[in-house]
C-alpha cells in the first residue's frame, strides 16, 4: 500500500510514527512546502529566546531515515484529485496514493497583503518565520517589537521576544489578552499577572491600523486611536487560515465526522480539520497538539486495524512557557460558575447539570489534572466542586479516591 501525507507537521509525524511502530511496511511519502524535518511549533519560539535549534525537532533529527520515509520537501501541493487518488505537486508532478493523510496546517492571516512585502513584518506560524525573525533581529539590531494580536500565539511570541531582551508591546482588540481561552474576570486577572510579572507592555481595545515604513523597512505602527509606536519588528498574530485550497474547500477547515474522513481514502487531521468536540459535539478547528495526536493515531489505527478510536477533540490549552503562573483553560464558560481566588491563584469552574462545562485555572497546576479528568469523564460533581477549588498541591485526587 502507498500512504501519502500532505504536510510534515505534528499530525503527520505522529501519524507516520504510529504506522511504523505498529508494524506498517507500507510505502510512505511525506510531502510539504516546508523544507524541514518535523518540528514542534510549541518548542520553536525558544529558538528566538536563545535555545538551540535541535530542541525543536521533537521526533529526532533522523526522523525520515529512522522510519524509512520518502520525502518531497520544499515544494507545494497544488491540487488533489480525490477521484483519481492523485496529488499534484508544483502544478506538474503527480504522486498517486492508496491512502492520503491530509494535514497541511495553517498560515498566518494578515489584514493587508501589502504588509507581507515590508521587511520587519512577520507571521509566527512556522519554523521559517522563526528563522527569519531571528535573523532580522540580529542583522537590524532590533530593539522594539510590536505583536499585533494577543491570543495564544501572540502571547507566546511576545514572551519569547521579551526573553530575548526586546522591548515588547502587545496590541490586542479585546479588553483582555487570551480572550478566547478566558472569561471576563479570569482573563483580566491573567492580563494583570502578565503585566505585573513580565516587562511586556499590553495595549488593549486597540488594533494596528497602519504601518510606518521607510525604504522598505518597518519603522513603527499607528493604532486605531491615532497613537503611533516606534518599532523595527511587527509580528502579526490575529488569526490563522487553514491551508485547504488544494482540496478545493473553503477556508474554515474541512468538516469531518468521527471517522476523520473527507473522502473514501482521504483523511484529515490537525489545523485543517474541523472535528466534533468530545463534550459538546460542536464542530470546529481545535488546533492543539493533543488533538492532532489523537486524530493522527486514530487514522493510523483505522488504516492498520480498521479500528476507529477517535472520540472527539477538546479545546484545552495552557500557557506557561517563560512564566511561573500557568494559565489553563478548557471547555466553554457557560453555566454556573464556582470560583476561588487569592493573590496568586484564580480558579473558576462552570457547571451545567452538575457536570463540568468549562474551567479556567490561573496560577498553578495543582488541581488541573484532577479537574481535567472530571471534565473529560463528565462525572457528576455538583456542589462538591467547592471543596477541591482551594486545594494546594497533590491532594485532590486522593480526597476523591478516599471519600468514595
Amino acid at each position: 500500500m502507498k500512504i501519502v501525507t500532505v504536510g510534515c507537521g505534528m499530525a503527520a509525524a505522529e501519524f507516520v510514527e504510529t504506522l511504523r511502530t505498529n508494524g506498517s511496511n507500507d510505502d510512505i511519502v511525506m510531502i510539504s512546502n516546508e523544507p524541514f524535518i518535523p518540528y514542534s511549533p510549541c518548542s520553536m519560539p525558544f529558538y528566538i529566546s536563545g535555545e538551540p535549534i535541535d530542541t525543536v525537532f521533537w521526533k529526532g533529527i533522523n526522523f525520515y531515515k529512522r522510519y524509512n520515509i520518502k520525502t518531497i520537501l520544499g515544494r507545494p501541493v497544488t491540487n488533489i484529485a480525490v477521484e483519481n487518488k492523485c496529488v499534484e505537486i508544483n502544478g506538474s508532478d503527480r504522486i498517486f496514493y492508496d491512502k492520503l493523510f491530509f494535514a497541511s496546517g495553517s498560515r498566518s492571516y494578515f489584514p493587508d497583503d501589502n504588509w507581507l512585502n515590508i521587511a520587519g513584518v512577520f507571521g509566527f506560524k512556522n519554523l521559517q518565520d522563526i528563522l527569519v525573525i531571528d535573523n532580522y533581529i540580529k542583522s537590524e539590531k532590533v530593539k522594539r517589537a510590536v505583536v499585533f494580536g494577543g491570543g495564544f500565539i501572540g502571547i507566546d511570541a511576545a514572551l519569547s521576544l521579551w526573553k530575548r531582551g526586546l522591548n515588547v508591546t502587545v496590541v490586542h482588540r479585546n479588553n483582555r489578552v487570551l480572550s478566547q481561552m478566558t472569561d471576563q474576570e479570569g482573563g483580566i486577572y491573567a492580563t494583570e499577572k502578565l503585566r505585573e510579572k513580565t516587562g511586556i507592555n499590553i495595549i488593549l481595545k486597540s488594533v494596528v491600523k497602519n504601518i510606518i515604513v521607510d525604504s522598505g523597512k518597518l519603522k513603527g505602527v499607528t493604532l486605531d486611536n491615532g497613537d503611533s509606536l516606534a518599532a523595527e519588528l511587527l509580528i502579526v498574530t490575529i488569526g490563522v487560515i487553514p491551508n485547504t485550497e488544494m482540496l478545493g474547500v473553503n477556508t474554515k477547515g474541512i468538516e469531518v465526522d468521527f471517522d476523520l474522513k473527507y473522502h473514501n481514502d482521504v483523511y484529515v487531521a490537525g489545523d485543517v480539520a474541523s472535528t466534533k468536540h468530545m463534550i459538546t459535539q460542536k464542530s470546529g478547528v481545535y488546533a492543539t497538539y493533543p488533538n492532532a495526536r489523537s486524530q493522527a493515531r486514530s487514522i493510523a489505527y483505522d488504516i492498520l486495524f480498521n479500528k476507529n478510536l477517535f472520540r472527539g477533540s477538546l479545546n484545552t490549552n495552557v500557557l506557561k512557557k517563560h512564566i511561573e503562573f500557568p494559565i489553563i483553560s478548557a471547555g466553554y464558560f457557560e453555566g454556573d460558575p464556582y470560583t476561588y481566588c487569592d493573590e496568586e491563584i484564580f480558579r473558576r469552574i462552570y457547571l451545567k447539570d452538575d457536570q463540568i462545562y468549562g474551567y479556567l485555572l490561573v496560577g498553578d497546576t495543582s488541581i488541573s489534572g484532577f479537574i481535567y479528568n472530571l471534565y473529560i469523564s463528565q462525572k457528576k460533581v455538583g456542589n462538591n466542586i467547592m471543596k477541591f477549588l482551594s486545594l494546594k498541591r497533590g491532594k485532590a485526587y486522593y480526597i476523591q479516591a478516599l471519600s468514595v
Partner: protein
Amino acid sequence: MKRIFIDYEKCVACKACEIACAIEHHPDKSVLSLVGDKKAHSNVKVIAVENINFASSCRHCDPAYCVDACPSGALKRDRFMNAVIVDPYMCKACAMCAMVCPFDAITFKKTYNSPFGRDHAVKCDFCIERIKIGLNPACVDACKTKALVFTDSESFVKSKEKADLKSFLVGHSKEPANVKLFKELKKEML
C-alpha cells in the same frame, strides 16, 4: 514490572522519603547541601488527607496522560523500567503534561539538570540509575516503616480485593500497633 507502592496505613509522615529523594537528586548527595538550596527538589511529597498521611508521587502510568500530552518530545518511556522520564534538554516547561496528570505528580523548577537556566518539568525518575545497579529507589530505602514498597505491580494489585486505583493506595498489611499508637497520639495533638 516493579513499581513503587504506598502502604498508607504505615506512613507516619516523617518525610524521610522526601529528604532521601532530594539527596539522591542533588549533585553533592549530602543532606547538608540541601539546606537553603533553591535548586534542590524532591519528587515525592508527603500529603495529609483527613488524618491519613502518605507519600505521593508519579505512578508511571501506562498509557500515561502526560506522555500523550507532551508536544516537545520531552517525555519518554524508558525501556528498562517502562518508567516515564522527562528529558530536561527537550522540555520547554509548557505544562501540557502537568495540565492533565490526575495525581499532580509534575512540578516545575530550575534544577541542577536545567540546561538553559530556567525551570523544566520535574517528576519521579524512578531512580533508574540505582535500580540498574540493583538498589531500590532512594525513597523506598529511606522509609523506616516500610510504607513504601518496591514490588511487582501485577502481584501487588492482584493481592488486593479491588483492582481500582484506590487499592493502589490501600494497605499491604495491617497497621503495626506502634504505628497505630503514634497516629492516635498525633491526632490527639492536633
